[in-house]
């Protein structure tokens, strides 16, 4: 049975064109870019870098390729603190790659402060501002929440940092924002990106470091990426990353995504006991909702049998069975248990969204009867 995929915030299908481009690199231009004879692949990598930088809105020299956003997030936290005696401020809504790494810093004796979220899942700016002081050396706030799609105002955060802790560096995980949500690319000093959330391959990401900023490498070795990130370049991944951005921008119908989200939101809001976690300004690509009294895993199975793949919060939350971010928003345990995440991509159609709505209504009703 064909499955309609609505978990695009988890990962995405690689575009055919992207896979083809990557295959060409893997089988034809497979030389090691560090070798003297591999001029072609060097050119391919640099043109991919330029294209990706342009799409992010930074210059090519600011982009360093990594194995993914988790590596870039780790890099920001582990190497982005200039004053080792200073404190680090992160939000409660961070992706685990930031949250867990901050925990590592904490275990090394570094003070980590956690900025709370408001009920909509955005940063509580007032409380955040109160946490900043002249000893704050690093701030990391996610741009667009992978759990709820809530979008934080990077410009405002920058202003607050400039007011209260001028010397602190500002990092933002922009994985769910790239190509999906407009964001102020000049506000953060460092940004993390990933290819596989927009039709690119897994295992490739980018770390953007503002020009002039000196950050130590996280991975040392052969001196690739201008001594900033050692390891033979993932050439096919890099080319695939650029190709994916290009395809995504060509194929995505933003008005359709908006309409699909609206339809699903309205449908879910109309079901008794369902709470949608959405607010003005959230990403159109992610819709989070809780069905009280039904373990979301069971609903996910029934939807799957009907031909729909949906998510249960981030993959990391699904694995541990706990959703830290929803908890920080004040969502009850019972609702967290029943949390689902529907996220859209280039292949989704209005017809699929309508069928998903029918399946949701039908299956929630069935489960409510059986579990009452």
């Amino acid at each position: 049975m064909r499955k309609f995929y609505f978990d695009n915030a988890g990962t995405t299908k690689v575009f055919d064109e992207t896979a083809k481009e990557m295959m060409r690199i893997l089988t034809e231009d497979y030389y090691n870019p560090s070798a003297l004879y591999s001029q072609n692949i060097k050119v391919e990598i640099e043109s991919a870098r330029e294209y990706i930088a342009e799409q992010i809105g930074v210059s090519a020299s600011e982009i360093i390729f990594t194995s993914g956003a988790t590596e870039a997030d780790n890099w920001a936290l582990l190497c982005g603190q200039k004053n080792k005696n200073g404190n680090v401020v992160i939000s409660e809504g961070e992706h685990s790659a930031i949250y867990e790494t901050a925990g590592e810093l904490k275990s090394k004796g570094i003070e980590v402060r956690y900025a709370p979220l408001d009920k909509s899942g955005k940063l509580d700016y007032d409380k955040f501002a109160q946490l900043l002081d002249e000893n704050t050396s690093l701030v990391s706030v996610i741009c667009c929440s992978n759990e709820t799609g809530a979008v934080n105002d990077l410009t405002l955060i920058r202003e607050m940092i400039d007011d209260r802790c001028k010397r602190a560096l500002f990092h933002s995980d922009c994985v769910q924002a790239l190509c999906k949500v407009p964001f102020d690319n000049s506000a953060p000093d460092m940004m993390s990106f990933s290819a596989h959330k927009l039709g690119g391959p897994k295992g490739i990401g980018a770390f953007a470091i503002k020009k002039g900023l000196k950050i130590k490498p996280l991975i040392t070795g052969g001196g690739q990426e201008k001594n900033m990130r050692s390891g033979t370049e993932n050439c096919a991944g890099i080319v695939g990353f650029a190709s994916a951005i290009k395809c995504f921008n060509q194929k995505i119908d933003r008005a359709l995504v908006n309409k699909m989200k609206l339809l699903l939101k309205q449908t879910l809001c109309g079901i008794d006991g369902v709470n949608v976690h959405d607010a003005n300004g959230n990403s159109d690509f992610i819709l989070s909702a809780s069905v009280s009294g039904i373990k979301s895993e069971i609903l996910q199975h029934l939807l799957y049998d009907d031909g729909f793949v949906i998510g249960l919060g981030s993959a990391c939350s699904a694995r541990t069975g706990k959703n830290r971010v929803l908890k920080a928003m004040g969502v009850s345990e019972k609702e967290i248990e029943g949390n689902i995440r529907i996220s859209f991509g280039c292949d989704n159609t209005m017809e699929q969204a309508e069928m998903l709505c029918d399946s949701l209504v039908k299956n929630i009703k069935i489960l409510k009867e059986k579990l009452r």
Partner: protein
Amino acid sequence: MDEIIVLRYGELYLKGKNRNFFESRLIRNIKYRLRDIPCKLNFYRSRYEVCDFANSDRNKIVNKLKTVFGLHSLSVAYRTETDLDSITDAAIKYVKPGKTFKIKAHRGDKRYPMTSVEIGREVGGRILSKINCEVDLNDPEIVVNVDVRETGCAYVYGDTVKCAGGMPVGTAGRGVLLLSGGIDSPVAGYMMMKRGLEITALHFYSYPYTSELARQKVITLAKKLTEYGGKFKLICVSTTAIQEKIHMNCTDSYMITLLRRTMMKIARKVAEECEAGCIINGESLAQVASQTLSGITVSNETVGGFPVFRPLIGMDKEEIIEISQKIDTYETSILPYEDCCTVFLPDSPATKPTIERAIKEEQKIENLDEMIEEAIKNREVIMIEP
């Protein structure tokens, strides 16, 4: 001088006229375990050898044989001629300069012209003349074993590796193991296989309330057990419809009691089908509400006098965990997927259920027997191979 692996069996020694039956099963199990590795097997009375294997396969063979029930221990050894020069050439490989050592000789061949003590003394003396080291008979750093065999050769070896012990799988009949995704049931299966039982595993699931991942977890656990018992069948039976009926019609606190009774009824029927002589489960007295004496009595009633083995009944959780870590099932067992017992879990399950009440509750469900038959009919059988 060839490098070989010497295998010794344990409890089989105690067998009288039946010994051949046990040995032939053990030999079959050893051959099966090594079926993919090029090597030669020699089976002598009370001692077996693996030889003619590639150097790179040595550790693989040792690891595979360590889990064969019926084997007591093994040693990687040199097989040499029985003359002292050959024995010394092999023994010297284990002795290191500056270390203390001892030669521990054993003479299986009583026709050999020297006693065990004389062999030890002579070989030790020859080593001392070649390497700068010392003999320490009481607390040596290195022990070199020399075993002169009746077959006209000598084994020279250092360490002895302890094997799984027990009885060869297949020598004690067959049992149906109730295999959940938890910590206990794989350990129960391991323990009964150790006593020679061959198993057929029976798993209950309740999709969509439990996930495909939970089922995959059980397959992974079953695969780990094949390292001890060889290939076996995993029978998966869905209890979804029955659980829904119990939830809708019966008293909440009896949910688990009724489910356990259903499982035992199904297990009994499956046992009959696959010619098993017993049911094995991982119950440990008082571990959870359903494993009280009353709980066990009520579920046991469904199988009449059919034997139910509960090898963990008197064990603490910590002891069970220790074994599950040893047999490498623990990390899989603790993966957080729902199992069917946690679906519709009542707030306070009955800790002192009675048979009469359970039967009365069951009567509230129309066609329970037919539903059980239907569940068995729709079973899925998966062959689990190492």
